[in-house]
């Protein structure tokens, strides 16, 4: 992948650079001036945009590619999520796509020669009623039929697996069991952006930061380029990977999307010794928890539930999410919260993402990631690159098309209807 063996990261390069006090590591990616024209422009240098550029260059031989970023690389939702990776979906369209992504995760550090710290510590969904256990066994069976790992756990097994969890009958939401995906886990979110950026750059992709797209130029039925704060750039094809701001970018091309933008908060505690070894989720109050490699307990819950482009939320949601965590882990009661933050989600009308063509030739869309964009990063880039290179979707992202909202072939895992904040 990277030409010079001396630029490869390895135990040897670590040792060699340690001899000079780690002061001589090479720059990881270039900072090029934008050229006048590219074959493909990807808008958005988050995980998805960078992964798309990487797979375009690596798998499809399209290397005259620019990734344009209004701020800094990975500064949006790539750096704001709770780092969870899983593929425990019920619907076929989602299941195959996310499972493909999970398989890419399993080889990603090797593929990129960059440690994304992928840790398959398991994702455990807790059930709080008999009917939820019924749903979990149904979903677990559906997953296994799709070749995805799933195990139904009883309360005793959960008590052994997560000893600090309140499994008593006196808690607000007693635990009836759970659905475990052992291959799920977490990854280091920033490293995913950096790893894809470094690998894409090494293949010739120009990553251009501080370059905000201000217009999408369309001639007749075809996209011909973009206007940016650093001048106009021509392009044969343009891909949007700007979840959170998808509606604003699509509006530049005169398009309206089945998406609303909502703020989602997350937070971390001060670092603790290891007490939570898996990713835990509970739908009783909608909360998801894991412990980072640094020891912080990292968790999040629902959206603030009103349309928002502010990368910050309000305290009622923070309070509710903390209460939910403490219901599950009363032992965390005196732990201090270190930080809270917010990111802007593309909430689609059926709760599932969109990867596909837009009704303008040469314009492609990747967005609508709702709560779950991070885990999709490699699969999303892989499918988006295929779609852009071949001007048609891969079988894996055909069900994720924009047209599904017109045809009625929705992927509504929750059966919540066309209410973006209900997914």
């Amino acid at each position, binding site marked *: 992948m990277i030409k010079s063996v001396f630029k490869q990261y390895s135990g040897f390069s670590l040792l060699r650079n340690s001899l000079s006090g780690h002061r001589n590591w090479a720059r990881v990616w270039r900072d090029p001036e934008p050229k006048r024209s590219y074959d493909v422009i990807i808008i958005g240098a988050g995980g998805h945009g960078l992964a798309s550029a990487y797979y375009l260059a690596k798998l499809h031989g399209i290397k005259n590619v620019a990734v344009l970023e209004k701020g800094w690389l990975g500064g949006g939702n790539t750096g704001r999520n709770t780092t969870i990776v899983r593929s425990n979906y019920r619907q076929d369209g989602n299941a195959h796509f996310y499972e493909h992504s999970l398989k890419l995760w399993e080889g990603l550090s090797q593929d990129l020669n960059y440690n994304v710290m992928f840790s398959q510590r398991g994702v455990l969904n807790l059930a709080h009623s008999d009917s939820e256990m019924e749903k979990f066994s149904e979903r677990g069976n559906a997953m296994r039929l799709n070749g995805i790992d799933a195990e139904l756990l009883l309360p005793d097994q959960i008590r052994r697996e997560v000893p600090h969890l309140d499994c008593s009958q006196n808690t607000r939401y007693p635990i009836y069991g759970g659905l475990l995906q052992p291959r799920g886990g977490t990854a280091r979110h920033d490293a995913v952006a950096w790893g894809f950026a470094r690998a894409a750059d090494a293949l010739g992709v120009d990553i251009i930061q501080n370059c905000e797209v201000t217009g999408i130029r369309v001639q007749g039925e075809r996209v011909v380029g973009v206007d940016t704060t650093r001048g106009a750039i021509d392009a044969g094809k343009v891909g949007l990977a700007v979840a959170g*701001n998808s*509606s*604003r970018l699509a*509006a530049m091309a005169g398009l*309206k*999307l*089945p*998406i*609303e*933008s909502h703020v989602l908060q997350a937070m971390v505690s001060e670092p603790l010794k290891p007490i939570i070894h898996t990713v835990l989720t509970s739908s009783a109050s909608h909360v998801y928890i894991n412990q980072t490699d640094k020891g912080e307990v990292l968790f999040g819950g629902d959206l603030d*539930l*009103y*349309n*928002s*482009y*502010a990368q910050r939320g*309000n*305290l*009622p949601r923070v309070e509710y999410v903390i209460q939910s965590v403490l219901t599950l882990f009363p032992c965390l009661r005196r732990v201090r919260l270190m930080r809270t933050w917010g990111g802007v989600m593309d909430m689609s*009308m059926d709760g599932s993402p969109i990867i596909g063509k837009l009704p303008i030739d040469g314009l492609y869309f990747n967005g609508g990631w709702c709560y779950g964009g991070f885990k999709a990063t490699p699969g999303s880039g892989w499918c988006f690159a295929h779609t852009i290179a071949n001007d048609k979707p891969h079988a894996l992202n055909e069900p994720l098309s924009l047209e599904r*909202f*017109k045809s009625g072939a929705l992927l509504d895992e929750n059966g919540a209807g*066309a*209410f*973006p*904040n209900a997914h």
Partner: protein
Amino acid sequence: MLVIRCPWCGERAQIEFTYRGDATVERPDLEANSDEWYDYVYTRDNPRGEHTEWWHHTGGCRKWFKVRRNTWTHEIISSEPPGSPDSD
């Protein structure tokens, strides 16, 4: 914490209210074609800036009303009963 003014109850804390969404979409005629229904059910302007939206005073008088709010700053500009001439 947002402080939202219910047109009937006055200013109350955000936690008393439930959000519904864009209040500018209009239900098309029953005879309308599927593209118009698609637009009504699914597509939204989703502006970064001023947005007119439905809220419900769930923990109060349980009436619906329209709020004009900035989605970037969270500033609440006005709130009006449904159908009032000042609202969109």
